[in-house]
């Protein structure tokens, strides 16, 4: 490693979770393994473990998201942490307070972790660079840059169905250009050793040089792109893109890039279909596909809580570790 990764402490342990970029396959696998352990918590009569009791997690959502905020909140609560949900639109930020002043004030209230979503790329990194040493930052989506917990919950969902990543063909369909989800997914899939990653989109919605930058293959035809795919990931089309002339009408988009059972027929018979939600039925995909036997969309939601529990507990657990590796682990007989 040449430059230190801002997400890791001196021992290479997770301190913040900002982006998939620069994390090793071992660390991503560790996150998936831990998340797998947390899946069982939802089966308990008391759906909670005492791991992060006494910790305080603040959800700072400068951009709206019901699902992501809710699953982060549930994840923190299942770890027994206390959760603050700051309603930014009616809070001090709206009155002119800077992000850093918001951070300082909440640090003064002894918040241990911030879950941050912001429309501006780099906000989570910026906060991590300025946060007090005992504080962790989790990126819940920043601009077009990254949405690492979404990518990891997608990896967990894929692993539950297709454990061997070394043989997989994965197709990502939709607005690749503006999607932080696609960016994080591409990096996660390549890091975990998926050999064949494809992106399928109209030319206006693909970043230039996407093939070279991410080691993926680009397609402009849906049926061709999903041929023999094991996994088809649909992205959400944001309505405002229609207005910015990057897309024709919703109807026309669906005609060309909407996923139907017929278009899916070229994929592998056991292919799974994913979507980060919320779905625009009749735009990205047909209801028949969204509710069909290959859809694992609701599993993604369930897995999202487990992945967020894993990332939060790993970061919170590493906060109090000194600079030397602990030798106390063996003493727990």
């Amino acid at each position, binding site marked *: 490693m040449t430059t230190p990764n801002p997400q890791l402490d001196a021992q290479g342990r997770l301190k913040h979770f900002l982006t998939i970029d620069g994390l090793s396959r071992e660390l991503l696998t560790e996150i998936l*393994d831990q998340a797998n*352990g947390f*899946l069982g*918590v939802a089966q308990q009569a008391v759906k909670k473990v*005492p791991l*992060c009791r006494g910790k305080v997690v603040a959800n700072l959502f400068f951009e709206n998201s019901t699902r992501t905020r809710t699953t982060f909140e549930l994840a923190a609560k299942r770890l027994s942490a206390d959760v603050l949900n700051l309603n930014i639109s009616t809070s001090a930020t709206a009155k002119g307070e800077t992000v850093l002043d918001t951070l300082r004030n909440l640090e003064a209230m002894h918040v241990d972790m911030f879950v941050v979503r912001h429309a501006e790329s780099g906000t989570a990194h910026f906060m991590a660079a300025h946060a007090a040493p005992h504080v962790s930052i989790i990126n819940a989506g920043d601009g077009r840059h990254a949405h690492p917990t979404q990518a990891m919950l997608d990896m967990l969902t894929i692993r539950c169905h297709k454990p061997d990543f070394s043989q997989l063909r994965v197709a990502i369909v939709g607005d690749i250009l503006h999607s932080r989800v696609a960016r994080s997914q591409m990096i996660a899939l390549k890091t975990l050793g998926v050999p064949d990653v494809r992106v399928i989109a109209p030319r206006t919605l693909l970043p230039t040089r996407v093939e070279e930058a991410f080691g993926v293959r680009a397609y402009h035809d849906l049926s061709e792109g999903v041929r023999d795919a094991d996994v088809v990931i649909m992205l959400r089309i944001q309505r405002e893109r229609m207005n910015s002339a990057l897309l024709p009408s919703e109807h026309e988009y669906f005609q060309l890039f909407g996923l139907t059972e017929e278009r899916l027929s070229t994929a592998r018979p056991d292919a799974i279909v994913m979507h980060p939600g919320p779905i625009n039925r009749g735009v990205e995909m047909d209801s028949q596909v969204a509710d069909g036997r290959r859809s694992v969309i609701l599993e993604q939601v369930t897995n999202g809580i487990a992945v967020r529990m894993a990332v939060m507990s790993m970061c919170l657990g590493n906060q109090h570790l000194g600079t030397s590796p602990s030798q106390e682990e063996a003493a727990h007989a």
Partner: protein
Amino acid sequence: MSKTDIWKDATAIEAAIDTMAVRLRERLERRGIAAPLMIGIHTGGVWVADRLHARLGLAEPLGHLDISFYRDDFSRVGMHPQVRPSYLPVGVADRHLILVDDVLQSGRTIRAAHNVLFDYGRPASVTLAVLLERDGRELPIAADVAGFEAGFGADEQIKLSGPEPLLMLRAKRDIHR
């Protein structure tokens, strides 16, 4: 630096598990418990429980418990690296449980295991069976059935290796680290 030797070999351990099974059966009969639910604590406890489960001929599958999320040293050592999902085949509420672990030393694992179990439901009773009950208790917890009872030096660590064959290894730790 540490020195490791075999404290009990496979033959001695299998014989001890035979004795544990006999004592458990006596105990269950004395208490009028017909269908207990057996639960092993990851990882060594599951190996011992597997054998006890077969010897007692229990009908219901063995449960597995991972106590990592309930450890009391999280804020000191962070996440345990190898967490497996707990697996309880049937509900524990109102059931008579046999909790199985390999070594009972500080008692902290059993404390954590109780907390896990109670988050799954309220059992009717819990019986604790361990392969080795040794010195070093830090909490008021005792085994109901033990395969071996022994005292060691504070610098001696006993670890079960397995699953096949089961061996108990003694490591002498350097306490001046």
